[in-house]
């Protein structure tokens, strides 16, 4: 029987003053009692609207019901059928705009903590070694380009359906943004490693250090015997502000900063060989998940003051609510309605400040969001020694430039059928950020999964 309780069962978190200086995970996860306690809050609606908010349509109330009953094996099985990366999505999905936004409990009370429960079940599954297996039943093999969530999920689904799969990844380690972007304190790499090991146990072959379009032309993959190709190359090309002073020492993209820290383990320098420099005062420009990750990482690396500079207000911020809350607790400063106009440096070429002007919100622009308008006479310089630019990324043009027949839109995103992922090139499918531009892990995972089924359909049409 559902139990009426207004509030979510709180997620145990480490104290801000303790966690803000190391890379250990911030959220500690539910223990069984808390999970069952929270699971009891689910009303088990006849027509669960939460599922409509989930891009991969996890049968949410079914798995939560199993948690309430204490059957974690069953809960894990239900989760896995819909979402191949539950331990990751339970940690990084923007639940507040997806499933939890729809939860009917949310009307008068707080929604059921679906994300926390998803994470709990996946963590239990991992701890108990509940495994997934696959058997090769088709002779065809498929090549996947890019080992981010889109590529990994596509590969996992194809392996589960019995196809041979090889994933080609350009970097030296698989995971995409999960590896190089999202920091350890939010997504421990051990979890990613586990998910990847599960895929490998299912027969997915992962080959790193291969950049398709450079090391191998895409068309070579067909010559090598792959029957179809999935492109999951993400949107990794960083945008810069295009303001004076951006070439000064001490200005970098969030991608560079986070890659130094996460992929290259720069936070352990000189233990690891790649250095990362942070200085005393840091400004991070932008207010998405990337910006939050960068600003909180800066604090952990020893910055005394770390500030988010954003030209709109907190209402237009795209970061997950939980990240914003955690950032506030950890002491991040927020300069809303502030737009950088110049990076200021000293005679040695190092950054000394960020010149900004204050903005006010005007009429909605083409995107429907209020357009920030400069306030005359509001120019000021924020003294900083590091500026991290986190204003967005776009798809890397490398593969498209070197491949004939791949159509893109004017943003450089691959044109692909929404339901199947089929591109303008026969037997080449695509999904994830490469198609949508920067989106979310679960949307990339969902696209990978849909494409896997479309590929299976194309290779072995159901009789």
């Amino acid at each position, binding site marked *: 029987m559902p139990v009426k309780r207004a509030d979510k069962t709180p997620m145990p978190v480490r104290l801000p003053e303790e966690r803000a200086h190391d890379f250990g995970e911030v959220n500690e996860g539910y223990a069984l009692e808390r999970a069952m306690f929270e699971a009891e809050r689910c009303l088990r609606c006849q027509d669960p609207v939460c599922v409509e908010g989930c891009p991969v349509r996890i049968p949410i109330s079914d798995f939560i019901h199993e948690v309430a009953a204490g059957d974690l094996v069953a809960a894990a099985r239900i989760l896995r059928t819909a979402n191949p990366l539950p331990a990751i999505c339970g940690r990084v999905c923007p639940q507040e705009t997806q499933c939890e936004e729809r939860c009917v409990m949310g009307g008068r009370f707080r929604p059921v903590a679906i994300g926390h429960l998803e994470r709990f079940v996946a963590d239990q599954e991992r701890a108990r070694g509940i495994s997934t297996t696959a058997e090769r039943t088709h002779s065809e093999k498929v090549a996947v380009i890019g080992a981010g969530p889109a590529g990994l999920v596509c590969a996992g689904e194809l392996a589960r359906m019995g196809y041979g799969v090889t994933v080609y990844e350009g970097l030296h380690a698989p995971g995409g943004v999960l590896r190089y972007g999202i920091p350890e304190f939010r997504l421990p790499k051990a979890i990613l490693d586990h998910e990847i090991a599960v895929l490998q146990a299912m027969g997915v072959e992962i080959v790193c250090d291969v950049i398709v379009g450079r*090391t191998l032309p895409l068309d070579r993959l067909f010559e090598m015997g792959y029957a179809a190709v999935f492109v999951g190359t993400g949107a990794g*090309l960083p945008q*810069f502000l295009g303001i004076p002073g951006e*070439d000064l*020492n001490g200005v*970098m993209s969030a991608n*560079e900063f986070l890659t130094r820290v996460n992929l290259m383990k720069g936070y352990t320098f000189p*233990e690891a*060989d790649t250095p990362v420099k942070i200085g005393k005062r840091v400004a991070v420009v932008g207010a998405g998940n990337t910006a939050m990750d960068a600003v909180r990482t800066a604090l952990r690396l020893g910055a005394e003051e770390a500030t988010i500079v954003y030209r709109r207000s907190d209402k237009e911020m795209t970061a997950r609510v939980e990240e914003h809350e955690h950032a506030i607790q950890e002491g991040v400063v927020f300069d809303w309605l502030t737009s950088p106009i110049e990076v200021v440096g000293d005679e040695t070429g190092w950054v000394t400040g960020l010149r900004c002007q204050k903005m006010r919100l005007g009429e909605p622009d083409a995107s429907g969001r209020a357009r920030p308008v400069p306030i005359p006479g509001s120019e000021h310089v924020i003294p900083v020694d590091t500026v991290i630019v986190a204003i967005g990324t776009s798809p890397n043009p490398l593969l498209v430039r070197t491949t004939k027949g791949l159509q893109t839109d004017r943003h450089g995103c691959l044109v692909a059928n929404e339901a199947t992922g089929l591109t303008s090139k026969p037997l080449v499918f695509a999904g994830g950020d490469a198609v949508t531009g920067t989106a979310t892990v679960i949307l990339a995972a969902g696209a990978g999964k849909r494409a896997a089924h479309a590929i299976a359909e194309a290779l072995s049409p159901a009789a």
Partner: protein
Amino acid sequence: MAKILSTRQLTPITKLFVVDAPLVAEAARPGQFVILRVREGGERIPVTIADYDRAARTIAIVVQEVGVTTRLVNRLGAGDDILDVVGPLGTPVEIPAGGHVVGVGGGFGAAALLCLMRELTARGDRTTSLLGARTKELLILVDELRAVSTNVELCTDDGSAGHHGLVTGRLAELIAGQGPGRPDHVIAIGPEVMMRAVAEATRPERIHTLVSMDPLMIDGTGMCGGCRVIVGGESKFACVDGPCFDAHQVDFTVAMRRGKAYAAEEKLAAERLAAAGGR
């Protein structure tokens, strides 16, 4: 993972490696580079592809010890594996056919001329390899470059081999018509001070000149922007748009300053490596 098939010490701190890298060898073109990593927790560093042999499925790279990773690489020998080798990266060099091409190689930059001069000579260009070093022992791959260039000109700061003086001095003489004569195209590969001097030497003559930039890189695929170089007032990613750029458009002052951004950390890492007995 790529296996080292053979090595050759070129100078006390410079070593040539022939590496088994079938896919890179098949795709490589002059002017491109690989990124390598030698240990877990290790850096990713760009290294120019000096040469490639598609039939043997190998590439040759030349590594000079300047920091921790290059030191670690040079400790490897035949039979050892390089943990990661990825490439070929960057945009291949484009030089219009039919002219006199002078390739200026400063120090170990000479290595990068090898496959380029071979290709240009083979298609019928007149080629001159203009090599410079402090002293005779530091000139590398002279015989190999002789075999693939129409002419080879040597310069040493101390006069121990070839012309006494800097490559730019000899380049000015070539431009004035001496020796192999005035170049139609110049490509300079070596220390930034040398490349900048070459750019200054050819600028008033309006001779098409390329330089191969070597900024700090991480991914090498256009993902971080750490390799930004200002070219013609615009910010370019050297790993994708380069590494070769129009020498007369490159802002060397910014490039040199950016190259030193991590000097203190590099020093610390080098000291730590030395204290650990080099491993």
